[in-house]
């Protein structure tokens, strides 16, 4: 038993705060104990389920295979991948006649193949990682896989899922191991294990000859652990409480936080003043958002080149927005080429005077309604200050806008554009359209039935 325990000790060192889970799994996957035919590991994101399973299996001598469901885009692919990874694992140990296994379309095939493959094995562990998120999974997938362990005696199956549901496996008595999310202290403890450096470029020995690597490492650890505390209190406790996102936020803020130390404005132990100095960092919540382009606030931004839509495309888009969000019965009020006076009389006050009895959801909060092409064009002609010749250019722009997905074809997807029943719908937000309207001198609010505030 000693070597096993030693092994577990190292694992516990590797994955702190997960002692009990490692203990349980270590027992499950111990070659000298029987393994249950089916085990469920559950826990939220970033709680160490997959990596701990992987390490334990790696350290034990039992042959195993791991299938990641996220990489399989169909149920069929999951079957193929499961068989392929089992084959890989087994062929390392013994000679397998690969020609027998050339295809695996469904669950039954997988079962037959596994039975054939594992007939000489004593034990084999097959791990399905994230199987509850499998795309195009058949409804029988989980219950059937859970029974594989009963049909094939040497096989035991491990499911890694996020939230367990008592009904999903259709069997009772499956051992569940819960991986709870890390608490505040655990998170900070884990992060404190690997402090990043304050002085990235190395220490300048000429300025301060006493300051050596060891002291620097000590300072790193000191500042980092306190820094993590501050980040947790200010930002992460509400918005980034899983370990991965907490780490990401800390990493993002670390360099700007220690910049004054590197510059020499503050000493490494002068933390309170440094915190006061860098307070704005912890008040700005932008770091919590993932951005596809990393914007460095310190860098001077390049002159931004804006690519603008062609002049008339903007008008088309505005017209589409108005047509989508205005009910057709108000068209007479807003788009008739009548005099301003008449328009006021018809709309406006009279309608406002009568408050409707039952409250309606404002139109602006609803999805845009589909509009026929001719209504769009009619609105376009009425809001345009100049006359627009009826030519192919406008239709080309409609096509371009629809391939940019600013304008969408509504109704049955892929319906014929030439079909008179084909309708359109605008696909951009109020703010965008307002800015667009202003750039061409159109105040959208003047034309919208439920005025936006």
């Amino acid at each position, binding site marked *: 038993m000693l070597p096993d325990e030693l092994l577990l000790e190292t694992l516990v060192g590797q994955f702190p705060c997960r002692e009990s889970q490692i203990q349980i799994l270590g027992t499950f996957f111990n070659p000298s104990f029987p393994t249950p035919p089916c085990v469920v590991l559950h826990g939220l994101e970033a709680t160490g389920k997959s990596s701990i399973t992987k390490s334990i299996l790696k350290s034990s001598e039992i042959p195993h295979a791991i299938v*990641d469901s*996220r*990489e399989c*885009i*169909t149920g*069929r*692919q999951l079957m*193929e*991948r499961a*068989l*392929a990874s089992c*084959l890989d694992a087994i062929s390392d140990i013994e000679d397998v006649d*690969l*020609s027998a*296994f*050339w*295809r*695996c379309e469904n669950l039954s095939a997988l079962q037959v193949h596994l039975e054939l493959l594992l007939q000489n094995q004593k034990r084999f562990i097959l791990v399905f990682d994230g199987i509850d998120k499998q795309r195009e999974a058949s409804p029988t997938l989980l219950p059937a896989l859970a029974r594989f362990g009963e049909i094939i005696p040497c096989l035991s199956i491990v499911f890694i899922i996020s939230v367990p549901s008592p009904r999903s496996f259709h069997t009772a008595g499956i051992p569940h191991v819960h991986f709870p999310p890390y608490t505040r202290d655990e998170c900070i403890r884990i992060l404190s294990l690997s402090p990043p450096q304050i002085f990235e470029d190395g220490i300048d020995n000429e300025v301060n000859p006493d300051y050596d690597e060891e002291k620097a490492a000590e300072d790193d650890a000191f500042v980092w652990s306190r820094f993590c505390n501050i980040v947790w209190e200010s930002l992460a406790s509400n918005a980034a409480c899983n370990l991965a996102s907490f780490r990401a936020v800390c990493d993002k803020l670390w360099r700007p936080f220690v910049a004054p130390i590197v510059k020499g404005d503050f000493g490494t132990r002068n933390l309170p003043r440094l915190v006061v100095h860098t307070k704005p960092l912890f008040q700005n919540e932008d770091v919590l958002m*993932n*951005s*596809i*382009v*990393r914007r460095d606030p310190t860098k001077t931004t*390049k002159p931004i*080149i804006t*690519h*603008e*839509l*062609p*002049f*008339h*495309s903007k008008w088309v888009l505005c017209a589409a927005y108005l047509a989508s969000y205005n009910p057709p019965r108000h068209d007479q009020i807003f788009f008739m080429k009548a005099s301003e006076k008449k328009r006021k009389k018809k709309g406006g006050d009279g309608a406002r005077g009568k408050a409707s009895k039952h409250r309606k959801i404002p139109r602006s909060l609803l999805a845009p309604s589909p509009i*026929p092409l*001719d209504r769009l*064009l*009619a609105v376009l*002609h009425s809001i345009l200050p100049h006359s627009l*010749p*009826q*030519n*192919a*250019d*406008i*239709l*080309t*722009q409609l096509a*371009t806008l629809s*391939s*940019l*997905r*600013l304008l969408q074809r509504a109704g049955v997807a892929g319906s014929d554009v*030439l*079909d*008179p*029943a084909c309708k359109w719908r605008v696909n951009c937000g109020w703010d965008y359209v307002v800015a667009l309207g202003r750039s061409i001198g159109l105040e959208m609010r003047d034309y919208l039935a439920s005025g936006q505030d």
Partner: protein
Amino acid sequence: MEHEKTYVFSSKSERPNKRRRVEPSGLDSSWSLREQTYQQLWREQQRRVQKVLDDANRTTLDELLGFVKESEEVEEDRKLPSGMILAGPSIAAHATFFDQLSERIGEETSSSFTLITSTDSANLKSLLKVLIKSATSQKSLDDGEDELITRKRKGPKILDYDLQLLHEWALDNDNPQVIVAFRDSEAFDENVLSEAVELLGLWSDRIQFVLLFGIATSIDNLQERLSQRATRFIRGQQFDVVQAKEILERIFFTITAEENVPLRLGSQLSRVLQERHEEHIQSVQDFVDAVQYAYMAHFFANPLSVFLRLTLDFTDLAKEHFTAFRNLPSFRRHIEDLLKERKNVSKVRKLLDSDQALFDTATNTIRRTQNAVDAVIQAASVLYICRSHFSQMRSVSRSAFFITALAGQLSASPTLREALLALKKCSSDVLLRILQDISPVLRSPSDSMVSNIQSRLSNLLRDVSGKREPLRSEHDNRNETQRTTIVASKVLLSRHKSNLSEQDAEYTKLLNEFVNWLSAYLEEHLIDPKNLFMHELVLYDLRAPHQGAFVPQTRHAIEQALFAPHDYLGCSCCVPTNDASEEVALAGSTPPTALLYRLYLESGALINVSDLWSAFNAILEDGGEDDSSKVMPLFQQALAELKTLGMIKSTRKKTDHISKVAWRGL
């Protein structure tokens, strides 16, 4: 025979009545010469355009290649290096850009480049299939196609959308970078794109992926569409492609405003093209096509364009060319001008009688006309440069400026006056810069004057080099003071020039000289090209062919044909009355579909079919058709045709009604 579906056509006569004329004669005889000239001139223009296009994208392409190479070295776990290419709203331009990119990547790196468009990725599976197929089918580094097969592992086959395939291919080929370019990222389905990014992100620890997104709107837009999980995998960097507007401006400049262009686009056509591309399309390729069309139209439709050939022999031309030449408006004007001076009568007689004399005159004059147009362009660019040094001037785009110049509207314009006034007030440092800038533009004869002034100015400046302030002219406001005197309760405003220093006075003299020369120069050269003899050959300025070819009025054509079939049929039965205000009366002789369309126009959004039928029937009865069994099929056919045209559709709102879908004039 029309009841049979197919039949054998047997012609009655042995030979067709019409004989083909093999030898071109008359005006057609110069066709091959014109084609050669066209080829030659257009090739030259195309080369210039291509150069502009290449130059425009070079910086962006260089940056992108640098990014791709750099990302090979950066090790950041599970993040996909991604280039966000902001390429503008013209999707057609994306294609050219990505073609150039794939070419450069193929030449300069060992990465494999895969272009994915929205059309071949309706769902994740097909996207992956395309990705794997095109990535693995590219050059394998060591001709290893055979090897690929032999090294392929045994066992179960891999599905063709499994990235394992790509992984194995990469292992066989030294694990190259796989560049995946989503050309029109907006057109992708959001879920498909997010899932694809996520999946590639999961595999990025085994395969080195680099993603490129072609973006037409903005990065924020893309970010909104991607899922949070996909966003976490992306480490992006932004790249800007030169704006389409900017490239258009440059191309316009190369095509019309460079020196030694034998054929230029006239002001009207240029303005139309310019407006169209600013307001509607913004497509560079389309603009180049339009210019090419102009060249083709000029050379293929205008026989006199043969005179643009550099070497032309009198014997090359048929007699008809000279007849055509004598019909040119500018030729007639030229003759009339000559006749005004009485002594030229013999010369005029010769031009009218002798083809040889006309030929000689034409070949001699055409260079002069070209030079005159060149001079207009040159003067315009001098003026433009001068204006650009004064910040308070209203900024006009360069192309618009040249269009005005080509229309001959610049010479007496406020723009010109304003510039000259500002020039009178400018200080010595600005003048020096202007002189430096315009001297390369000017050609030799006028250059001497400029260099003369330039050298004198630099001498003058050397004398006063101790002074920090630049020299000012006497017209400068800073040399004036305003005095207010009150005499007998009236306010008198008077301006007084402060005393000029000696150098300032000398500078003023120099400046006046320059301004006088410049205004004379501009006056001389900024002429209306339409007044030049033979301007029809040197400037192509017809709008109508372009409108027909590039901006067809499809819907208008159909509506017009249905509304007024007489315009197309030209039959005698339904000639419109001369009274233009009154619409054509509905007559039984008009085609049934057109008739029904007129009735359709008169009705509201919902149309009762029975009413429609009775109106239709009544009109046909007036026209002499009283058998309703013959009218009914006509009615039904007309109704079906309107439905096919997308004008009506059946509705469930009311029984026996159809609803109107298309309104006229939209």
